[in-house]
């Protein structure tokens, strides 16, 4: 099947789920982002056509929130907390080590599409600082020494399923 068509169909389905309600644009974009790990241009165009919202508006919303990305994100998103507590506990050093190990800068994705690195504000669990979150898993009291092992675990997961 032609990928363009399937993407269009998928997005149409998502729009339909919200009954084309214009105020649900953010929720729709979230679903699309979950599906493709970014917001493909094709998807935004489909949303614009299906929901009768100007493309300029869709683009405004899509670029406004950090949770959305216009470029493909990694399968594993590493969020290094640099909130006050984690910062004090060395969060920046963790970020640094992740960047160096993966050879990418914060906000970027590795070439194989496996990892993205981001810095975030307080994750709300300061008592176990410094914290790193990978997708939905929290890694408490992280140290730089643990980073290679953590990365290896996720690399293995790719082949796991």
């Amino acid at each position, binding site marked *: 099947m032609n990928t363009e068509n399937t993407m269009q169909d998928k997005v149409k389905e998502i729009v339909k789920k919200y009954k084309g309600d214009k105020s649900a644009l953010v929720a729709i974009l979230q679903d699309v982002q979950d599906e493709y790990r970014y917001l493909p241009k094709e998807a*935004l165009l489909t949303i614009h056509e299906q929901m009768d919202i*100007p*493309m*300029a*508006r869709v*683009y*405004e919303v899509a*670029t*406004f929130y950090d949770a959305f990305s216009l470029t493909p994100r990694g399968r594993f998103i590493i969020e290094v907390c640099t909130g006050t507590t984690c910062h004090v506990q060395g969060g920046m050093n963790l970020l640094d080590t992740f960047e160096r190990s993966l050879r990418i800068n914060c906000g970027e994705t590795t070439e194989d599409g496996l990892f993205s690195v981001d810095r975030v504000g307080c994750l709300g669990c300061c008592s176990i600082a410094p914290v790193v979150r990978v997708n939905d898993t929290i890694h408490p009291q992280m140290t730089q020494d643990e980073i290679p092992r953590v990365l290896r675990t996720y690399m293995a997961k790719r082949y796991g399923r």
Partner: protein
Amino acid sequence: MVKLVIDGKTVQAEEGKILLTVARENGIEIPTLCSHETLENTGACRLCVVEITKGKRKKIVTSCLYAAEDGIVVDTKSDRVLKVRRFVMQFLMARCPTSDVIRDMAANMGIAPETRFKPSEDGKTCIFCRLCVKACEDVVGVSALGFAFRGVDKALGTPYREPSPACIGCGSCAYICPTRQITMSSTENTRSICGKTFKMKACSVCGRYFAPEEQLAFISKKTGVDLEALSVCSSCR
């Protein structure tokens, strides 16, 4: 009708009328950048600040959003107003030092160019007032323009910075832009704006190129007037 005092002058105004309008109708000047009579005010530039006294309280408000009330005393040039306005102007100067509109306004207020900040490399003079975006959406009805990203990365433009399929080349955005960030250029039979070049239509009577073909097609579709009838320029009609 309500009665209020502006700069020591007692004036009458309809209740709910915007202060800025009342002041201007009474010949009192208030500097503005982001207010335009065809669009609703949004209070983006903050230059139109005035001080109002209501009972015992004094406060600074944006006159383009404040509705006239009975018994208030408005001062458009008090020391506090001038201080705030200078402050706002300094920010605008720091943001768009290359804009001649802003520079002239600042010079009029005796504000020297700010040397602490480097002008942005792309020479952008956008103050994010959104007038162009609103004109394109509310007045023209095409919505080709918008803002993208946010914070220091926020920028005005068409989606993906590509020529917009929605744009009809009417030039409203360039016309309404208070700082002339959006520019339009033309040759005899083309017009370029927002990264898109339009073919101009020649008047079927005098042969003068007078409007983008896409704009005429849009008007014809919107109003139901025959395209032929629209192919005559305004001076030959």
